[in-house]
């Protein structure tokens, strides 16, 4: 029997506060516990969960969030996300290395740049639909490395060698601010009985501080992105997007501007791809052309599907999966029944491919839908009716009178979307 919580009640507020604080604690805990190389041992194998990998996962999660907007919520198969990921990475690296911009400031350029190019490249997509759009966008994704390697762009992209984020091919340093007592926090955490051992011992070096700060900053960027997209999905624009996905003709008849809605979703998705790329390059320190091939675009699709198409939390799960699975697959040295040869090649890609196929069959909603089913067995949030009335026993006791008829929704599509979700 699940605990039932009424949406908007004080218990619901408390529930939200508790879950968010747990999340914040988790982030901080992970930052301090895994700053070097945390690992899980299974048999003979060590699986690393250092911040380096988690930072990549955050970058991927933001890019997959963009895919969620365009493919998950608007239903457009614009699958070439690696193109914008790469563009964001290069733009950010170029600004940091050649123009001495601080990392956070580069978003002022990266976001509008990717947004505009996303819309421009999306314009043909207003006529091209479904499968064909998938073809064209994957084609663009395949072309990106060739564009970056062009001789004419050498001064910006540094050709085959890749563009470093700092001057003279070094990595851009993300200095933690003076006011943040990371050292002190680490010391306090180490004093916690029983758990203290997980947080290492002794003070933390400047390199570790840098890494921790990067992780926290990237998490914050990701939270802002997710928060904005969550609000977008709930807004009028978001409802229009879902209407376009569920029934384009119906949406158009209800007065939704299909072209505008689609173009917006392309722009937002591309901007998110760019943000993800900027985070990625800040972590890796080098934008190298062959990191951004159509294989990366396909990996993003794997992340989209594995997490769950049309869910925001699915993007996080997807980011973790595509960052960690290939890495863990290559660090697996021994699995009882498998011959060694199978563990030395691109085993990670094989697993991702199999995941893609198996999930489409057995769990079309992705991991998130399974997790939600589980969660509903423990805690269930009961939504209120359109007028704020309480559903269930209470509302059944007082029958709805003629005065109580709900307000007219904004448009029939809103109603339809409400019913679908």
């Amino acid at each position, binding site marked *: 029997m699940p605990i039932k919580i009424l949406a908007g009640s004080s218990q619901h507020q408390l529930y939200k506060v508790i879950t968010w604080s747990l999340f914040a604690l988790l982030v901080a805990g992970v930052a301090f516990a895994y700053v070097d190389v945390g690992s899980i041992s299974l048999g003979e194998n060590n699986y690393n969960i250092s911040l380096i990998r988690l930072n990549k996962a955050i970058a991927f999660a933001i890019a997959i969030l963009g895919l969620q907007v365009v493919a998950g919520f608007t239903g457009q198969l614009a699958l070439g996300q690696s193109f914008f990921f790469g563009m964001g990475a290069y733009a950010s690296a170029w600004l940091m290395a050649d123009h001495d911009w601080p990392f956070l400031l580069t978003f002022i350029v990266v976001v509008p740049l990717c947004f505009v190019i996303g819309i421009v490249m999306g314009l043909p997509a207003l006529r091209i639909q479904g499968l064909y759009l998938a*073809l064209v966008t994957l084609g663009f994704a395949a072309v990106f490395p060739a564009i970056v390697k062009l001789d004419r762009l050498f001064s910006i992209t540094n050709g085959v060698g890749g563009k470093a984020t700092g001057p003279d091919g070094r990595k851009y340093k993300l200095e933690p601010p003076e006011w943040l007592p990371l050292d002190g926090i680490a010391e306090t955490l180490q004093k916690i009985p029983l758990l203290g051992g997980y947080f290492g011992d002794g003070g933390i070096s400047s390199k570790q501080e840098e890494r921790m700060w990067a992780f926290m900053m990237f998490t914050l960027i990701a939270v802002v992105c997710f928060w904005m997209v969550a609000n977008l999905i709930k807004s009028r624009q978001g409802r229009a997007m879902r209407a376009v996905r569920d029934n384009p003709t119906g949406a158009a008849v209800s007065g939704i501007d299909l072209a505008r809605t689609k173009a917006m979703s392309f722009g937002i998705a591309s901007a998110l791809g760019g943000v993800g790329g900027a985070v990625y390059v800040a972590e890796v320190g080098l934008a190298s052309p062959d990191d951004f091939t159509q294989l990366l675009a396909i990996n993003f699709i794997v992340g989209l599907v594995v997490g769950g198409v049309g869910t925001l939390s699915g993007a996080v799960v997807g980011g973790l999966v595509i960052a960690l699975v290939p890495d863990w697959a290559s660090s697996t040295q021994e699995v009882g029944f498998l011959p060694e040869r199978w563990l030395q090649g691109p085993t990670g*890609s094989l697993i991702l491919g199999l995941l*893609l196929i198996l999930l489409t069959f057995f769990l079309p909603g992705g991991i998130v839908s399974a997790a939600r089913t589980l969660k509903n067995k423990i805690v269930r949030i009961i939504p209120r009716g359109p007028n704020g009335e309480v559903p269930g026993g209470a509302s059944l006791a007082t029958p709805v009178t003629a005065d109580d008829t709900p307000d007219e929704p904004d448009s029939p599509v809103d109603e339809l979307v409400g019913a679908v979700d």
Partner: protein
Amino acid sequence: MQLFVQRLFDALANGSTYALVAVALVLIFKATTLVNFAQGELAMLGAFVTLVLAYEQGIPMWLAVFLAMIILGVFAAGVERVLIRPFDPADHLPLVIITLGLFLGINAMAGIVWRFDPRSFPELFPSGNAFTWGSASLRWYTVFTVLTVLVTIGLLQLLLNKTKIGLAFRAVSSNLESSELVGIRVGPTLQFGWALAAAVGTLGAAVYVADPFRQLEPSIMLRVLIFAVSAAALGGLDSLWGALAGGIAIGAIQSLVVPYVPFIPNELGLAAAVVVLMLVLLVRPAGLFGTPAVSRV
């Protein structure tokens, strides 16, 4: 002038191999209105099977290619039955995802089994030049590649137009529901389409890597697939001869237009193909020889 003729010959050689893979795409598109993203990887797998048969079993080259075509055909028929048929053909997202999963899976599997180091592929055609004119030379490879494509498409036309299963295939591709009503077994017919496509794709990959300048490795078909997709779209996604015309046109763009037009850098042959793909879909979605899609709204 001699350089131009040389480039023309290159265009023919490249274009006809693209056409073979494009024909495979067209066959699947005709059957299921689906573009099989894994087609290139299936073809690459076929080329590896050929290599294994020829080197490790000592089977003569052409027989090995033929056997590989059959093996891949059976494999693709199995893939269709298990992975494709359970889904609604009108809903593209799951099918795109499945074929992308196949793409990743087959590519990784080949990488695990055969590794990524390039292998030389035995020549299928006599080496040397059929014809030389100054510095321009027409290789026998080019001649036989073009012939192979012509014969393949000719045979496919015969198969589709003169046999019972071909008739069933055409019926299904023109109207799936009606053909079901008149008693055609739709499932096996589509399966036949997949098998045929995989076989033709295998031939395409074998011919492509049989060029002495190329070597076989698991990612060889990544680029070819994009050229083939543009070729198929340009020729009209449901026309076999269109695939040939599209293939030659894309080959010509790659070998002729890109070197001669000053503002397109040489490395952008692939980009030119993608732009052609986009323009075709924008301006004339049915391609040059395809049937325009008609729908009742």
